[in-house]
């Protein structure tokens, strides 16, 4: 489904700002991949580059999604093809209500695929169901998008969007950070209920805790812009116990 080859990326307009230094990653249909790594190693950058954030420039390598190179596509075009990013730091958007904006997002996706738009009634029903499922206070979603939301509320709101939009590849960037135990379970249940042979996940996390609920198929360790180790679910336990010292030392030696 997703194939990343030798991906290098820098910050636009900043010289010598390379963050991703040759990422290789293959995600098959139905798989859940976890990416772990120390602060500043490039996990969010990878997630954002995959989604097409214009702040980054890809200087080498390729990203192929469903057999098509997506590096030339705008973020909305990637979304229409089934990609979704739950942000580590969701933007606050005053005056924009989640309901309106998600309806616009779905309509735009339907339009791009030549499908019929969902009726307001059907959408409202779906929306209300998902609001309940992710445990967001319904009055909150009547307000502005993320404005004045607590950290945990923002993350739940990301889950709400994920569940409404039903992407085929969902990238979750630390959606588990800042969540209370109940919310963590909601995120995990959300992901587990959406797991299907047709849908894949890339879950960026610092905590083994989340992986107790969501059992990943593959775990990657990203250090200084490179994937330095790939393994099974046990790798997360190892990191939890030993930290990244060994990898950092090795990466430092290579640099």
């Amino acid at each position, binding site marked *: 489904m997703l194939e990343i080859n030798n991906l290098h990326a820098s910050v636009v307009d900043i010289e010598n700002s390379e963050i991703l230094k040759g990422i290789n990653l293959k995600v098959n249909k139905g798989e859940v991949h976890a990416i772990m790594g120390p602060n500043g190693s490039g996990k969010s950058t990878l997630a954002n580059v995959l989604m097409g*954030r214009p702040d980054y420039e890809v200087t080498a390598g390729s990203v192929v999604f469903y057999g098509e190179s997506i590096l030339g596509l705008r973020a909305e075009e990637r979304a229409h093809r089934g990609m*979704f990013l739950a942000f580590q730091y969701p933007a606050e958007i005053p005056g924009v209500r989640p309901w309106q904006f998600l309806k616009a997002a779905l309509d735009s996706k339907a339009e791009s695929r030549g499908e019929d738009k969902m009726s307001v009634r059907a959408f409202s029903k779906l929306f209300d169901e998902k609001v309940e499922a992710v445990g967001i206070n319904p009055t909150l979603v009547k307000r502005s998008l993320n404005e004045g939301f607590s950290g945990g509320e923002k993350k739940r709101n990301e889950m709400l969007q994920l569940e409404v939009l039903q992407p085929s590849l969902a990238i979750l960037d630390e959606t588990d950070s800042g969540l209370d135990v109940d919310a963590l379970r909601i995120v995990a249940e959300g992901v587990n209920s959406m797991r299907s042979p047709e849908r894949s996940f890339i879950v960026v996390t610092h905590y083994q805790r989340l992986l107790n609920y969501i059992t990943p198929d593959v775990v990657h360790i990203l250090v200084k812009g490179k994937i330095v180790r790939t393994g099974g679910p046990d790798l997360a336990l190892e990191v939890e116990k030993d930290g990244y010292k060994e990898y950092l030392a090795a990466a430092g030696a290579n640099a």
Partner: protein
Amino acid sequence: MTLATLPAAVEKFSTAYESLLTRSSNTTGWLNVLRQQAWSTFSELGIPTKRRGNELWKYTNLQPLAAADFVYGVSGSVTRDQIKVAGPWDDAWNTIVVVDGKFNAELSNLNGTAGLNAGSLAEAIAGGTGDVELQLASLAGREEYAFTALNTAFIDDGAYVAVIDGTELKEPIHVVFVTSNATENRASYPRLLVDAGAGTSLVLIETYLNLAETAQFVAPVVEMFAGERSTIKHYRVQMENEKSFHLGTTRISQLGDSDFTSTSFAVGASIARNDIHTLLNAPGASCTLHGLYMTNGTQQQDQEISTTHAKPNCSSNQYYKGILSGKSHAVFSGKVVVERNAQKSDATQKDLNLMLSRGAEIDAKPSLEIYADDVTASHGATAGHVDRDTLFYLQSRGVSEDAAKAILVRGFAEEMLNEFKPTALNEFVERITDERIPILLAESDTIGTT
């Protein structure tokens, strides 16, 4: 203050003024005195110019107005349907229609509500209704302000609204000032006097519409008297065509424990000024002045917002939002004066602007003049852009770039749009905003650049 005079600019109003005196059916003695005084004030002041340290007009270029010619007193035909299409309308409202400055009974829709006396200002003057002689031009017209003087010199008719003590009106009063379709450039001087008695509660909507495609010079003056414990929700919708000039004056005097809220929607005209002043004239009075302005092309939109705390224990809140595109220019000149004895005053001032293009310009000058010592006050103004992060957030969900921009601009306006409470009015301002946003965006070059 010295105001530079353009003699030619005054001259061209004088023929119209002479003919008004002979033509007007309104020959009430005190009115004639008022007009004459105002005319001599205006002929001294003339059309204000930017020059010679003229603070009030420092940021506003009236040269195009001074250079244009206008016909006064010619009126074309207007239908109810035209008004309904062009502006907000609800059959349940008590609507007063004023065409080219003249009250029009046929187009008006007055439901004979108890406690409400609404209709023609000319009739109120002729009949000496209520306190009309005392009130008219007592808040506006005798001051050194060219356009209120000009309006007062031309008082002939307009709208009069009086609400009897203790009356709580369920439905809004809607005053529509419309300029009829015409091939010539015309001047009109809409006038509205509102006398809200003690303990009254009312909603008053003021709409300025323009059915002509030619340049119209509209210089309205509105005076409102808010009685003790009265609650007035005032709305002002200003949307003349892009060739026109709108120079409006609104003056409110508030008695004890009255609460006045004004919400303005200013989107029209080539040069527009919304000059509103509230006088908190007795303890416990409070006012909230809100507004949304949107400009594009080469429009100029000025908000001259001022409040005087004359007595203790009053509160005022000024909060405006602007969306600017193209090479347009807006001014927010907010002023709060707290007089020496007005202790325990509370005043806030805020002006937030969304700049959609590099060529657009905002001059925001919130100012507080405080002469009392026990006062809570704050003020601030900002000019920002739609940033790349928020745009990317929406796009990453599949919303196209153009739609995302529209959603973000609309989101900025939303808070003010929500202040327009009457349903038909709310729907109207939302619709106009949605129609306007693509026009603003077409002239935008800053979204997503920061």
